[in-house]
């Protein structure tokens, strides 16, 4: 009960920051841009060609669900990584920098419990934010092209290609995928959270996290590393796309998420060890 009271306080702090709301605004702006690109005649022509080459009907798959999938794929990759790293990188380091932790440390709360509260808050925030992007993206897409139509999925990197002509099936798969993205993005937040627990500036925690992810992504693209791609964090984080495969391969998905959960626990533990042994001078 007390844990939830503390968690509520942590979420209250998170949502009281102007930066948090600026993030929502930034995502909506990005969704609008993607939607505008989709509406361009040239884009529609390109998509029509692609669908018809694969024997699919443009009228069925040029839909709000397909646009929502693209919005989630692109906005999470382009903006999500930066934004989650920024929020999670701030969660401990910023409070230390601002001196708020001094007042917290005058309270009878253990450092482990404090970090557990903060980590839970960041994870909840990350997970729910993905759904916000999905729902807001879908709402905008519905306003632009209507609610009907199926879902077309093409993700060349992970070799996923699928088409769901029925709306309910496509929507269900997309909701599942959103859950998967949420879990994947928690790993990104965990990396930033760990660095936030170290004796670094908040901006440094964010920059180091993004550097690690981008290096991971770049190295993964090298032919030399092809046989080892499953060891890369960003590859594992992309496992959510497998939820959109026509026939879901659960062992593949469970393996990836077990890898990510293990990684998240390790990152939290490292952050906690650093935080636990640090001196916080008054």
């Amino acid at each position, binding site marked *: 009960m*007390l844990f939830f009271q503390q968690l509520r306080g942590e979420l209250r702090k998170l949502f*009281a920051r102007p930066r948090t709301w600026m993030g929502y605004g930034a995502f909506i702006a990005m969704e609008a841009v993607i939607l505008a690109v989709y509406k361009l005649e040239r884009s529609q022509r390109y998509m029509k060609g692609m669908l018809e080459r694969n024997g699919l009907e443009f009228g069925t798959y040029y839909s709000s669900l397909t646009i929502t999938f693209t919005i989630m794929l692109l906005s999470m990759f382009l903006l999500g990584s930066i934004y989650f790293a920024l929020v999670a990188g701030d969660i401990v380091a910023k409070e230390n920098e601002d*001196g708020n932790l*001094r007042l917290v*440390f*005058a309270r009878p*709360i253990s450092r482990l419990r404090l970090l557990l509260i903060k980590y839970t808050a960041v994870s909840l925030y990350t997970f729910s934010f993905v759904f916000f992007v999905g729902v807001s993206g879908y709402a905008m897409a519905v306003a632009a092209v209507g609610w009907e139509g199926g879902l077309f999925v093409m993700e060349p990197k992970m070799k996923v290609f699928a088409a769901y002509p029925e709306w309910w099936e496509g929507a269900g798969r997309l909701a599942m995928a959103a859950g998967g993205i949420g879990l994947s993005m928690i790993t990104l937040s965990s990396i930033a959270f760990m660095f936030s627990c170290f004796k670094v500036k908040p901006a440094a925690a964010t920059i180091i996290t993004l550097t690690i992810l981008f290096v991971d992504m770049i190295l993964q693209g090298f032919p030399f590393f092809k046989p080892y791609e499953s060891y890369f964090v960003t590859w594992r984080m992309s496992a959510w796309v497998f939820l959109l495969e026509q026939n879901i391969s659960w062992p593949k998905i469970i393996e990836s998420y077990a890898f990510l959960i293990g990684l998240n626990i390790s990152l939290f533990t490292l952050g906690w060890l650093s935080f636990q042994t640090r*001196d916080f*001078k*008054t």
Partner: protein
Amino acid sequence: MLSVNGLFKNFSGKPALTDVSFHVGRGEIYGLLGHNGAGKSTSLGIILGMVMPDRGDVTIDGISVLKDRSKALRKVGAIFEAPAFYEYLSGWDNLKILMSYSGGFDAESAAEVIDRVGLSKRVHSKVRTYSHGMRQRLALAQALLPEPEVLLLDEPTDGLDPEGIKWFRDFILNLRDERGMTVLFNSHLLAEVELMCDRVAILREGQRVFEGRVSGLQDDTPVFEVDLAPWDLACGLVKSAGGDILSTGKVSLPHTMDPATLVAALVRAGIRVRAFSPVRRSLEDLYMEILNGAPSPN
């Protein structure tokens, strides 16, 4: 109530505390003095479990802070110089969040404490709109809300105006008188420490170099400011009476000597006594003597 036992702490090989010990009894106000970097804040950090000592321990009501920090700090409230609240939240929300770390928030008790510290009208405003004095009042409220038995004050009156300082002092003294609260007061404002504290310790370069009662500062050899003429003749008489000439116009007398007897003897010897008044030895004098190894100029 609060025992600091043989603390040692090095930062990057540089000693910050060397064998610092002191004990603060229940209902006592204890002052911790020292120049910047003397180890006051490090001591406070160790008491609160923010800084890990290399050696030594701190117990609060018999509970070790190192072994069971959460239990030990249940009876502790702390105020820091320039307390950093969450600026984007109201004072009330800040209290709610901080109290959730102390076992839960009770709106009724909070309203009572807020009223007591005189912040009722502004408690729902954002902290970023608060003056320094209001922040200190909020700091006091957050420290008092868990109903502590020990209050740790780290430079709490720095930056306050004289009115604010007096209000703060009276408030703390009332708390001690009404609730028997134990207070550790860390400050640069020697006059404040003298007015508030029962005992003081002085730290120099991480070592405790003095501990004593504030009321006992006058117990040493009394010093008098005098205006006597002729001075040379008067000096002879003072010396023959067992006194000492400290400088022109300043003499010290042994404890056993009644100054009135000396004044009478001086008058009888035909010396004009224009002034003969005791010099009160302040905490500042003692502090300067200890830290500089010489008496402060008067």
